[in-house]
C-alpha cells in the first residue's frame, strides 16, 4: 500500500476517533431531548462543571475558596491531599444528581409546556449560570485532568502499520491516540449500559415511555418530574464521562464548555432523538471533517473543520430534513 | 320547500371536475378512481364514514396532495401540477377539519391573511406604508369588516384567536376563507364539535354565503341532517371509493350508502 493511501486510512481512523468524542457530548443532548423535548445547550457546561468538580475533589480543593477568602480575608486553598479517583468520581456523580434535581426543582418545573425555543433559551441561561457558578466554586485556572487513562500515540500500532507500506516508501506508521481508543471503548460501554438500562430497568422503561408519548406516559401514572430528574442525572453522568475524556486532552478549563458546539452538527445529522444517530452522526462528522481538511482543506487555507461539520450536516438535512435517524415528519392538515 | 326550485335556477355550469383521482400513501390507497363534479353556485356535500378519504379529496382539490392518477379540471381547464398557494390564487378557499387558524394573530389579522391572494403592493411601498400600501390595507380592511359584520364577530375583532372558544374559532376560520372571496369554498367539517345552536348559526352562514355571494361550496360534514338540508348534491365516499352521487333524496335511498352507514355506525 502506498503511503498516501495509508495516510488516508489514518485520517479516517482518527476521524472515527474524533467522531466518538463528539458523539460522547451529543449523547447527553439526545438523552434529554428524547425525554423532555429540551434542547439542552448547557450540556457542554455540564461537562465542564463535572470535570471541574472531579478535579476539585481529586486534588482536595476547597470549593468557593476565592469567595471565602475575599469575604473573610482568609487564605484557604486545599483541605488536604485530595482523594482517590474512584471516590471522586462517585462524589462527582452525586453532585451531578443533586444538580439534576435542582434544575428540575427550580427551572424545568416552572417551564412545563413552554415552547421548545423558550426551553432552549432557559438552558442557555443555565449554561451561563453554571459557568459562573463553576468558576466561582473551583476557580478559573487551568486544571490537569488525570484519572489514570493512558494517552499518546500507540507504538504498537505504529510498528504494525509501518510494515503495511510498500517496500522502500518513506512511511512512519499509522498514528492513533491511546486515549482516543480508550474513549471509544468507554463510549461503547456507555451506550451498552444505557441500552441495558433502558431495556431492563423499570425506570428505563418509563423513560422510553415518556420519550414515545408524554401524554400517554402521564396517564399511566409515570411521574414526569422524577423522570426528568433521572434523565438529567444520566445526562450529567454522560457529561462527566465527556468531561473526563476532553479534560484529559486539553486540561479542565472554560474552553471545555465549547465542545457543545462540536456536538451540534452531530445532532442534526443523527437526529435529535436517536442514540445510534448520535454515534453514527458523530462518526460521519468526525471522518467527514478530517477527510475534508486533509484532502481539500489545505488548498483553501485550512481550519475548515468548524464550518465543514455544519455544512456536511446541512447537506444531509437537505435530503432528510429530520436527520438520518430522526422520526419522519409527516405533514397533515 | 319552494326554496329548492329557486336554488335550481341558481346552479350553473360545471365549475370543478375531478376525473379518476387515485391517491396513495406509500402503497396505502386513500382514493381510488374518484370522479365527480361541482357546479357553479351549488352546495356540494362530500360524506362518508371516518377514513373514507373525504379530507384527502379536499386536499387533492386544494393542491396539497398530488394524486398519482387523475385530473382536476377547474373553470373548464385542466389543472397542471400546482402548489397549494397557486390553487388558492385561482379562487379556491377552504377551512380545515382541525382548526388551522394562525393562533398568534387577532381575528382581524386572520381574516386579512385570507385576503393575501388579492393584495398586491410590493415590499418597497409596504416599507414606506404611507401611500399605496396603506390605501390597499384600508380597502381590504373595509372588505374584511363587512365579513366580520356578516359573521357577527365584531366583539372579538382584535382578540388573538388562540383565546377564543372553539365555536368562535370555527366561525373565524370560515371568515378567513370568505375573506378570500373565492369562487369555490371548501369546508372541511365546518360543524364538527359544535352544539346545536352553533350548528344552526353555521348552517345559516353557509346558506347565506351561498345566497348572498353566490359562492360555490363543497363541504364535508358528518351530521346527516345538516348535509341533507344544506346540500344540492351529495357524493358519498367509502374506503376511498365513490359509493354514490346525487341529490340528497337519491343518496338517502341508495342501498350501498345505507349499507355503508349501517355497517359503520356514524358518529
Amino acid at each position, binding site marked *: 500500500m502506498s503511503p498516501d493511501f495509508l495516510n488516508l486510512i489514518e485520517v479516517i481512523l482518527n476521524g472515527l476517533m474524533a467522531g466518538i468524542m463528539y458523539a460522547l457530548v451529543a449523547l447527553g443532548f439526545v438523552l434529554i431531548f428524547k425525554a423532555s423535548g429540551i434542547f439542552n445547550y448547557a450540556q457542554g457546561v455540564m461537562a465542564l462543571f463535572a470535570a471541574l468538580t472531579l478535579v476539585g475533589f481529586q486534588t482536595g480543593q476547597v470549593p468557593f475558596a476565592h469567595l471565602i477568602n475575599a469575604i473573610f480575608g482568609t487564605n484557604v486553598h486545599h483541605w488536604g491531599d485530595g482523594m482517590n479517583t474512584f471516590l471522586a468520581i462517585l462524589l462527582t456523580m452525586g453532585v451531578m444528581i443533586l444538580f439534576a434535581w435542582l434544575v428540575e426543582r427550580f427551572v424545568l418545573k416552572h417551564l412545563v409546556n413552554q415552547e421548545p425555543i423558550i426551553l432552549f433559551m432557559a438552558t442557555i441561561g443555565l449554561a451561563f449560570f453554571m459557568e459562573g457558578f463553576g468558576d466561582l466554586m473551583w476557580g478559573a485556572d487551568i486544571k490537569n485532568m488525570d484519572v489514570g487513562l493512558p494517552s499518546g500515540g500507540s507504538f504498537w500500532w505504529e510498528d504494525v502499520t509501518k510494515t503495511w507500506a510498500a517496500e522502500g516508501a518513506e512511511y512512519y506508521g499509522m498514528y492513533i491516540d491511546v486515549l482516543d481508543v480508550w474513549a471509544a471503548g468507554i463510549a461503547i460501554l456507555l451506550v451498552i449500559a444505557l441500552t441495558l438500562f433502558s431495556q431492563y430497568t423499570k425506570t428505563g422503561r418509563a423513560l422510553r415511555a415518556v420519550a414515545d408519548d408524554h401524554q400517554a406516559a402521564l396517564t399511566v401514572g409515570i411521574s414526569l418530574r422524577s423522570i426528568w430528574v433521572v434523565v438529567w442525572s444520566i445526562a450529567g453522568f454522560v457529561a462527566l464521562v465527556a468531561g473526563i475524556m476532553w479534560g484529559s486532552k486539553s486540561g479542565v478549563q472554560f474552553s471545555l464548555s465549547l465542545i457543545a458546539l462540536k456536538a451540534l452538527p452531530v445532532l442534526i445529522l443523527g437526529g435529535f432523538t436517536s442514540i445510534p444517530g448520535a454515534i453514527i452522526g458523530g462518526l460521519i462528522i468526525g471522518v467527514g471533517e478530517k477527510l475534508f481538511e486533509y484532502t481539500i482543506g489545505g488548498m483553501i487555507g485550512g481550519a475548515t473543520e468548524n464550518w465543514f461539520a*455544519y455544512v456536511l450536516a446541512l447537506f444531509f438535512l437537505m435530503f432528510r430534513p429530520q436527520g438520518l435517524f430522526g422520526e419522519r415528519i409527516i405533514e397533515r392538515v | 320547500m319552494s326554496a329548492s326550485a329557486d336554488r335550481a335556477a341558481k346552479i350553473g355550469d360545471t365549475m370543478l371536475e375531478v376525473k379518476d383521482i387515485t391517491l396513495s400513501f406509500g402503497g396505502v390507497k386513500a382514493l381510488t378512481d374518484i370522479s365527480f363534479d361541482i357546479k357553479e353556485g351549488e352546495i356540494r356535500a362530500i360524506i362518508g364514514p371516518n377514513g373514507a378519504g373525504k379530507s384527502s379529496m379536499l386536499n387533492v382539490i386544494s393542491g396539497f396532495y398530488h394524486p398519482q392518477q387523475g385530473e382536476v379540471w377547474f373553470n373548464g381547464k385542466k389543472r397542471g401540477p400546482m402548489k397549494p398557494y397557486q390553487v388558492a390564487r385561482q379562487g379556491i378557499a377552504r377551512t380545515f377539519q382541525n382548526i388551522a387558524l394562525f393562533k398568534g394573530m387577532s381575528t382581524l389579522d386572520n381574516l386579512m391573511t385570507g385576503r393575501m391572494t388579492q393584495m398586491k403592493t410590493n415590499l418597497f411601498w409596504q416599507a414606506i406604508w404611507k401611500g399605496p400600501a396603506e390605501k390597499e390595507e384600508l380597502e381590504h380592511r373595509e372588505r374584511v369588516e363587512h365579513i366580520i359584520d356578516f359573521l357577527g364577530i365584531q366583539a372579538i375583532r382584535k382578540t388573538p384567536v388562540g383565546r377564543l372558544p372553539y365555536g368562535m374559532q370555527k366561525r373565524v376560520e370560515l371568515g378567513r376563507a370568505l375573506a378570500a372571496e373565492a369562487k369555490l369554498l371548501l369546508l372541511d367539517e365546518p360543524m364538527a364539535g359544535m352544539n346545536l345552536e352553533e350548528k344552526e348559526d353555521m348552517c345559516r352562514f353557509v346558506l347565506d354565503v351561498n345566497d348572498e355571494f353566490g359562492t360555490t361550496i363543497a363541504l364535508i360534514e358528518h351530521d346527516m341532517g345538516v348535509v341533507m338540508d344544506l346540500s344540492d348534491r351529495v357524493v358519498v365516499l367509502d374506503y376511498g371509493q365513490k359509493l354514490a352521487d346525487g341529490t340528497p333524496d337519491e343518496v338517502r335511498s341508495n342501498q350501498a350508502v345505507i349499507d355503508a352507514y349501517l355497517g359503520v355506525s356514524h358518529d
Partner: protein
Amino acid sequence: MFYREAGDFKTSYASDQQTFPIKLDRYFVWGVLAIAFLVIPFVINDYWEKSVLVPFLVWAMAALGLNILTGYCGQVSLGTGGFMAVGAYACYKLMVAFPEMNMFLVVILAGLITAMVGIAFGLPSLRIKGFYLAVATLAAQFFLVWLFNKVPWFYNYSASGQISAPERTVFDIAVTGPNAPPWATYLFCLILVVVFAYVARNLTRGRTGRSWMAIRDMDIAAEIIGVPPLQAKLSAFAISSFYIGMSGAMFFAIYLGSAEPTEAFGIDKSFLVLFMVIVGGLGSILGSFLGAAFMILIPVLLKNIMVGVLGWPADLAAHIEFLLIGALIMIFLIAEPHGLAQLWRVTKEKLRLWPFPH
C-alpha cells in the same frame, strides 16, 4: 392608571390601525423620541456613547432583524453573527472603495448585500424546520466567519486580517473613525434605527408581516390559503439579513472602528441576539428594543454595581455576573416566557384597567 382612553375613539381605519392607537402611548413615544433626538445629543459623552447608547442601538437593530425572522416568521436562526460579519465586511469594502459615499448609503448598501447572502442561506429553510434549521444556520455562521478570515481580499490584504474603519462622513460630519464626535455617531445610529424600526413595523403590520406570521403559526394552512412559502420565508430571511447586515456595518464602522471576524462576529453574538429577541419578546418590535436594552445594559449595570459600587474583586464580580445573568435569564423565562414586551403589554393592560385587577 395613566390611561384616559374615554373619548379616544377612532373614526377611520387609518386611525384605528395606527401603531399606537392609544393617545397616551403616542405622546409617550413622541416624548421618548424627542428626548432621544433633542436632548441626548447635547449631553452625551464618550462613555455613554461607546458603552451604552451606540451598542444598544446597534444591537437593537440586530434584534429587530432577528425578530423578523424568528419572532415573526418562526424560523430560528443562529447565524446572526455571520450575517453581521457580511454587513461589516461589505461596509468595509464599500468604505474603502468609495470614500466619498455617504455613510447612510454605505450602511444601507451593506444591508442589501447581506440580504442577498441571507437569501442564499435561507434556501434550506424550505425543507428544514425547527431546531434542525437552527443548527443548520450555524453553517452560515461558521462558514462566513471562516471565509472572511481566510480570503485576504475581504480585509484588503492587511497583515493581521483586521479591518479598521477609516474616517467617513455624513454631510461633512465624521461618523466613523476616532475623531467622530459622540453625538454624531449616536445620531447616525439613532436615525437608522428609528427609521428602520418604523419600516419593520410597516412590514410586519401589512401583507408581508401577515404572511410571515401565517407561516410561523401554521405553515401548511398558510400555504393552502394562498401564502407562498418560498416567498414568505425568503423575504423574511432577506429582510432579517438586511437589518442584521446594517447592524453589523454599524457595529464595525461606528461602534468598534475595527474588527476581526472570529472575535467580533463569533457564535456568541448569534446567541446574544437570540437572547435579546427572546428576552425581549418574539414577534414584537418593542421587544427587540427591550431585549437589546436588557442584554446590553444589565451586564454593564451588574459590573458597575459589583465592582464600582461594592468594590468586589474584578474576577469574582465577573463570575458572579455570569451567574446572575444566567439566573436572570431563567427567572425571566419562568416569569414571562413571552418576554419583556409581553410583560409590558400585561402591565399596560393592567394600567388601562386600573384600579380593577382584570
